[in-house]
């Protein structure tokens, strides 16, 4: 009985040591190969995540996740509409939406050299404030390139480039700080968990909701707008909350600049 216990115990311990060694070996291979293991993992995740995002988008566009009330209303409509035409209309609507989004990037492409690329992962998946895009070294994506939304706001930087996917680090992810200008007043914004950022500025500096925030670290491009200003008479500083005009997790396409500034 005791022998069996010891055998089981040493077997378990050996397994734990092997697992730990395997992790160390994988990290060493990744380090020595210049991030090949990273690249492989990101490619697999990008493929699976991209497929899932597309499937969910298609389901959403088809009306699968609509509320009960809207489904009832749709049911009413469907009684008076031929099913084939309805399906065609849904498909047209989805395509139009995608086309509208892509056409917003057209003006960006005219002014800047870069690539419009789909977002292939949900930003909720990453605990590190990153997301994957469906373009990589083959599509000429460069390390450290700036990533813009369709309204020209900088959302992040490319931190890893694989063959057909790249990893983007969000500019305003939690606990990251960035030096910025609100109008002409300098401020240091710190990212918060909600994907926004906040900064403390002296109360005598005039800041209004809607002011555009720019940053020299991204070539003076806009990084957000002032969403809220909280100031108390007892405090010498005001807290300025900055947000992106659109939600990063709702973005389907982004524009990756060819340059890093």
């Amino acid at each position, binding site marked *: 009985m005791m022998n069996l216990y010891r055998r089981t115990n040493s077997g*378990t311990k050996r397994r734990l040591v092997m697992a730990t060694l395997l992790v160390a070996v994988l990290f060493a291979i990744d380090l020595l190969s210049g991030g090949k293991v990273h690249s492989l993992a990101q490619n697999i995740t990008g493929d699976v995540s991209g497929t899932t995002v597309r499937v969910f988008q298609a389901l959403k566009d088809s009306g699968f996740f609509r509320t009960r009330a809207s489904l009832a209303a749709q049911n009413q409509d469907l009684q008076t509409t031929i099913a084939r035409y309805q399906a065609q209309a849904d498909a047209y609507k989805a395509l139009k939406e995608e086309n509208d989004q892509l056409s917003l990037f057209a003006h960006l492409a005219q002014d800047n050299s870069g690539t419009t690329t789909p977002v292939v992962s949900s930003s909720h998946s990453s605990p*590190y404030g*990153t997301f994957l895009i469906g373009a990589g070294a083959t599509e000429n994506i460069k390390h450290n390139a700036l990533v813009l939304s369709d309204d020209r706001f900088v959302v992040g930087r490319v*931190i890893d480039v694989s063959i057909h996917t790249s990893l983007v680090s969000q500019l305003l992810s939690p606990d990251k700080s960035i030096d910025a200008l609100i109008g002409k007043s300098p401020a240091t914004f710190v990212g918060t968990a909600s994907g926004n950022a906040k900064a403390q500025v002296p109360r005598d500096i005039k800041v209004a909701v809607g002011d555009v925030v720019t940053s020299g670290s991204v070539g003076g491009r806009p990084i957000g707008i002032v969403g809220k200003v909280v100031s108390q008479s007892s405090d010498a500083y005001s807290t300025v909350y900055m947000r992106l005009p659109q939600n990063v997790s709702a973005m389907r396409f982004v524009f990756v600049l060819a340059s890093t500034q």
Partner: protein
Amino acid sequence: MYVRIILGFIGFLGVMTGPWWVPLTCMVLLCIRWSAPEAVLMGLFLDLSWQGSMAATSWHTWPIFTALGLVFLWGLEPLRRRFLF
């Protein structure tokens, strides 16, 4: 055994498509019941997938989930031995 396979499957799928707390929950559940090396691999896969390969300049670049996997695997071993053997 089926539960372990299902938890492993959900965890790995969660790394790629779900919110980050799904694999974390699977890692904890796996390590509570089994000495499960796959929990560490799950953490490693999450870190490799979502972290850049930059130098460790902030906590964003520390392999937190790999470390957590190792902590769960080794740290919960006395508990498993006490109750499961």
